[in-house]
């Protein structure tokens, strides 16, 4: 018996309009969705070409949910996206060439080659770079919300986490603090059913992670993470609730991690039928079909968007490959911040 509310799928264009997206917005969302998948697919190719050092992770299957939540955020809202949330970076406006530069350890990546993978963020866009340690960014997201509360600003923080990482103490402490102080934060659980090779029933003993929300004094919602519009609606609702002083919400977005944990992992432990079943619910395909059926997206429109995305990606790859590797003379710079560093948009 789930304690959390199970969200309905989204139906008509009208419903979506009510939730705040007009047709133009929807085509933008589609573009971001394509771009998100494209960035990761191209990244994968780069990896196979030996151009990406270290390992390589993607959020395949989670593109819709990550794009949806980011689309629901307000311009001054902030968030701490994780390794399956490329869509958040894309929607907030990180330039794809900088993501490729990041992947390849180049000087123009957001971390200037100091960190790899999706361990990056552009603070100017309201994002905070994740650390590997999961889910250590949740207390940080709660701290952002605390700052908003102290200053009485109508801003919201979003903290992402995986269903596996929900087992860690950081998750509990973050939700506890957010709950007792009714802070404007939305917790988004990317429940892709596997934590590396570990299935959910070894990570938590309830049916849903969102069933826990009540234990922290706020609402839990389970939503189909392949249904972009349903995720958008729930995220929007939760964000506006938080903005209005209604406190935190825990949204659990259920998907399947459609690839291995990282590029080296063939996911032999995931039953084949599971992949087959979830492949039928590809979030991109699902949203595309919805747009054609409900928003009359035409062949021309579709082609134009794909064309634009392809061009962005091609240009981005080229520009990223032109970015130099970091100069070793920079190695020891900036371990400590200087007073001038505080002159960022957030610190004002």
């Amino acid at each position, binding site marked *: 018996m789930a304690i959390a509310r199970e969200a309905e799928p989204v139906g008509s264009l009208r419903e979506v309009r009510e939730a705040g997206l007009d047709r133009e917005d929807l085509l933008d969302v589609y573009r971001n969705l394509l771009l998100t998948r494209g960035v990761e697919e191209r990244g994968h190719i780069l990896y196979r070409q030996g151009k990406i050092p270290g390992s390589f992770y993607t959020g395949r299957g989670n593109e819709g949910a990550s794009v949806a939540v980011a689309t629901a955020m307000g311009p001054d809202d902030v968030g701490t996206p994780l390794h399956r949330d490329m869509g958040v970076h894309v929607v907030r406006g990180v330039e794809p060439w900088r993501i490729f530069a990041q992947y390849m350890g180049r000087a123009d990546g957001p971390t200037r080659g100091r960190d790899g993978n999706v361990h990056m963020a552009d603070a100017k866009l309201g994002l905070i770079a994740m650390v590997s340690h999961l889910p250590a960014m949740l207390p940080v997201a709660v701290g952002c919300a605390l700052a908003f509360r102290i200053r009485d600003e109508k801003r919201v923080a979003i903290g992402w986490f995986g269903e596996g990482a929900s087992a860690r103490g*950081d998750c509990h402490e973050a939700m506890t603090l957010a709950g007792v102080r009714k802070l404007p934060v939305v917790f988004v659980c990317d429940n892709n059913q596997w934590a590396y090779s570990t299935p959910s029933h070894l990570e938590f003993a309830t049916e849903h992670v969102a069933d826990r929300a009540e234990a922290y004094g706020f609402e839990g919602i389970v939503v189909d993470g392949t249904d972009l519009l349903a995720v958008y609606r729930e995220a929007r609702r939760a964000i506006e609730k938080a903005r209005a002083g209604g406190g935190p919400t825990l949204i659990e977005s259920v998907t399947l991690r459609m690839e291995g944990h990282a590029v080296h992992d063939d996911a032999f432990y995931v039953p084949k039928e599971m992949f087959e079943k979830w492949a039928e619910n590809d979030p991109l395909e699902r949203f595309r079909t919805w747009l054609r059926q409900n928003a009359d997206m035409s062949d021309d429109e579709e082609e134009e968007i794909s064309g634009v995305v392809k061009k962005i990606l091609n240009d981005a790859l080229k520009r990223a490959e032109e970015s130099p590797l970091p100069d070793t003379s920079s190695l020891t710079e900036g371990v400590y911040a200087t007073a001038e560093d505080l002159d960022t948009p957030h610190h004002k």
Partner: protein
Amino acid sequence: MAELTYLQAISDGLRTEMRRDKRVFVIGEDVGVYGGAFKVTLGFQEEFGHWRVIDAPLAETAIVGACTGAAIMGMRPVAEMQFADFISCAWDQLVTVAAKQRYRAGTPVPITVRLPSGGGFSGGPFHSQNPESSFAHVPGLKCVCPATPEDAKGLLISAIEDPNPVLYFEHKHLYRRIKAEVPEERYTVPLGKARIHREGDDVTVITWGAMVYTAAEAAQQLEGDGVSVEIVDLRTVMPWDKVAVLESARKTSKVLVLHEDTRTGGFGAEIAATIGEEAFEDLDAPVKRIAAPDTPVPFSPPLEKAFIPQVDDVAAGLRELAAY
């Protein structure tokens, strides 16, 4: 100038900064209604309200992590650990998130964590530790260890103002025992600059925190022997003032490094190793370390006394060096 205890000087520094800068807020267990376990924030909630003096849940990871988030959003959080020992529960947030964010992502994390530390009153293994060495090893963190009321105030203001995560170790055994004149206005004491607590010519003691007073008493003893002892109070363990340390080492050619934390792998090793490496030709004796033995801090008074370096231990070490 008013005469303040070390504890009052900390309160004073914190209050000064909170009055001056609206971005500064305090969060910790029992810091609000109760005024903190040691009453450093007594009366603060009345003055600043309960959103700037926040009684946190018993959750150190949430406290430090939330400070990090708030700092990135432009606040200047000051977290209080009820005892320094409990910072072990926020170790990951400090070393993984706060310490590395500036280097990796360019995001400064200006937080201050106040840590009532040190032994001397039968606090036992979990209310007496001096964990500064562990943090001083982590690139990205700063560690401040004031010894005097004046430094306590000035260094706290510097810590809050500093754009980095700063651990501010306040020694509990100095709280009410040490009193001195403290300027009433706002002032800062720079991080990374040592202070000559006492000038001397024959032997140098490098130390910080409560051990400054132990060293001073020992130096007094040595006066009778005609040995002149210089005491360098590091004030901040990270960054530490290598220039001042090497200068004093070169002047006296004999150095004792003294700390209350346990010996092996303690920060004294870094200081001794650096002196050995950079002032090798100037040394007339091996750099000697005096520190607590490698055990947890014992509770029972005779054990604790044997554990914490005492004046006589230091005096004996100084005599040995003087005679070398």
